[in-house]
């Protein structure tokens, strides 16, 4: 084929036009677009469907991540222009995302009144939702104590709570438990089992003790998996009697399925000012997107309406209590079976025995030790 100058110019113009398109789209107003990066649940139809109906012309997209750092990676890797909301566990907003300019503060006038309808633990208002400079960084909603899970047909709740983390050092349980390999949580829990406060700087002796305990718990475990369903199945079919790292979040799907012998346990005592449990609390923040969608703040308000808060609590995958259960109107939407799935009967005392999931001063060194032991 022979090309003439005109054809070439036409082709070049077409190529340049095509190349310019994404830039042009990026500069457009984002009034009708909302992108949410979240843990599973906020991306379900029961939550997004009603919001889409309320905003018929809007394109609402939500993507669930598999871990907090996985989601932060997306923002760090340049997707700050794409996402409007990010939903992560509590320490990340204060310790990393806000100082690094990855999220922007919320309008206090608009969002502070929401705290009045939260459970007493969050009504204070919840301190980790704020930066040191007083900026409101995110809104709490789902939460849950996170320690370990037992099959109460094999190990009674009382015994598990009394023994606490020592359960996994008991030779009688060797080869009869699993480790749910949520790496960052494992580090916290290995510290707890070693009688160390993970959220304070560790001495050389404590690091040695951490290494010994982590090695022992790994070596004596029968199953190691990052899949909570696999772990629950192993627990139900008797392959194991307990699993290290877990809680309401991981036990609730099995419990809601009628397997109420699967139970998250919060030890009665432990190394952090006498407390033996740790609780995660999700915060949803607005991303520091230079072209933030106005729908972000609207969605944030929307998910705290009673019906939607209930849908968030019982979205697919896992079931979790929500801060909104302090509002009688929201609370009335939960039936007995659902409350049992999220261990509502013992939740206040489990929360009282727990400290906040926080950043660990020696995280970098401990994760190196952890990955080396795992190998």
């Amino acid at each position, binding site marked *: 084929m022979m090309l003439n100058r005109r054809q*070439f110019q036409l082709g070049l113009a077409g190529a340049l036009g095509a190349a310019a398109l994404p830039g042009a789209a990026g500069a457009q107003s984002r009034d009708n677009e909302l992108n949410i990066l979240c843990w599973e649940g906020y991306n379900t139809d029961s939550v997004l469907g009603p919001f889409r109906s309320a905003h018929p012309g809007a394109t609402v997209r939500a993507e669930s991540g598999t871990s907090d750092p996985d989601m932060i990676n997306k923002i760090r890797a340049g997707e700050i222009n794409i996402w409007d909301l990010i939903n992560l566990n509590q320490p990340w907003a204060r310790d990393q995302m806000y100082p690094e300019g990855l999220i922007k503060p919320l309008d206090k006038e608009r969002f502070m009144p929401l705290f009045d309808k939260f459970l007493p633990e969050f009504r204070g208002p919840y301190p980790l939702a704020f930066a040191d400079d007083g900026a409101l960084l995110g809104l709490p909603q789902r939460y849950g104590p996170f320690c370990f899970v037992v099959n109460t047909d094999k190990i009674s709740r009382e015994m598990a709570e009394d023994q606490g983390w020592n359960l996994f050092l008991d030779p009688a349980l060797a080869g009869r438990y699993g480790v749910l390999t949520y790496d960052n949580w494992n580090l916290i829990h290995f510290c707890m089992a070693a009688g160390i406060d993970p959220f304070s700087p560790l001495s050389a002796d404590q690091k040695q003790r951490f290494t010994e305990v982590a090695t022992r718990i790994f070596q004596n475990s029968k199953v190691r998996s990052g899949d909570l*369903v696999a772990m629950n199945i192993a627990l139900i079919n008797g392959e194991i009697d307990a699993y290290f790292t877990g809680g309401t979040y991981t036990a609730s799907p099995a419990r809601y399925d009628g397997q109420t012998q699967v139970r998250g346990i919060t030890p009665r005592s432990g190394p952090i000012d006498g407390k033996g449990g740790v609780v995660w609390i999700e915060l949803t923040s607005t991303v520091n997107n230079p072209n933030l969608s106005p729908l972000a703040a609207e969605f944030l308000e929307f998910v705290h309406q009673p019906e939607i808060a209930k849908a968030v609590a019982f979205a697919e995958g896992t079931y979790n209590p929500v801060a909104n259960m302090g509002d009688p109107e929201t609370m009335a939407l939960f039936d007995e079976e659902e409350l049992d799935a999220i261990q509502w009967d013992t939740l206040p005392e489990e929360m009282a025995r727990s400290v906040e999931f926080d950043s660990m001063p020696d995280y970098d060194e401990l994760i190196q030790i952890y990955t080396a032991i795992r190998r």
Partner: protein
Amino acid sequence: MERIDRRLGLLFALPVSAILAGAFLAPLLVVAIFSTMPQKVFDFLHWPDFSSYRVILEQGYWRSILWSLGLAFTATALLLVICWPLAYGMARVFGRFTLVLTVLVVMSLFVSENIRLFGWFLTLMKGGLIEGHLRAWFGQGFEGLLFNVPAILFGLVYVYLPFMLFPLAQGIAMVPDDARAAAFDLGASRWQVFTQIELPLAAPGIMVGSLLTFVLSAGAIAEAKLLGGRAVIVIADDIETAFTFAQNWPLGSALSMVLIAVVGTLVILGLRRVDLDAIMGRRR
């Protein structure tokens, strides 16, 4: 005019070449540069210190690399043995049934790998399809079949079977019937025909199938995590941890570079031994 036309052709090819360079080379380059950065940084604005490579050596990451390579070698060898008779049948014996078999194997690829592996998890676990049935029928069960190295190998063989089967069938189809018949006529035994005629002439298919399965198995992660219960930690698992929970992008990049270098070297050595054009049908 011809020369101008060629130059215009080159110019027209520029956008596509740029896209290819951007899509294939740029990400690799980014990973390569990141691997030289100091620990736990998230941009390139630092002097390279290559510390991640030192960390890899000091902290025993070579163990994960060896496990991945060992599992990949074993899975590839097992697949060769398993797929050879099947591929032979497809190329020479089954006739129309080959199409049915092809469709069946290809259909399995339509389902996500994780879902298929979870199906096997439910089958092999204690109280699962196998152990549960045996216990119900005979009153005695056993401790399940999961969470060990054989379970990981089973997963690799299962997932990557199509990647060995089809190139192998293609390779076997390339062996001319005349060559086989001539060998028999000259008094060759069945074994001699296999080792001296079929294997060498089907070598491109064997090599392509082996390389595909080896490369994919070396980077596999789900089999070890789900079926193996992390009985061993494979290199892809370490790379994932470095990028996520450790928030150490340079270390993750360095581990990726090591894997790319090791696998790349093996692939290049392998490819030098076969004529890929032959299996593509360009030169016969």
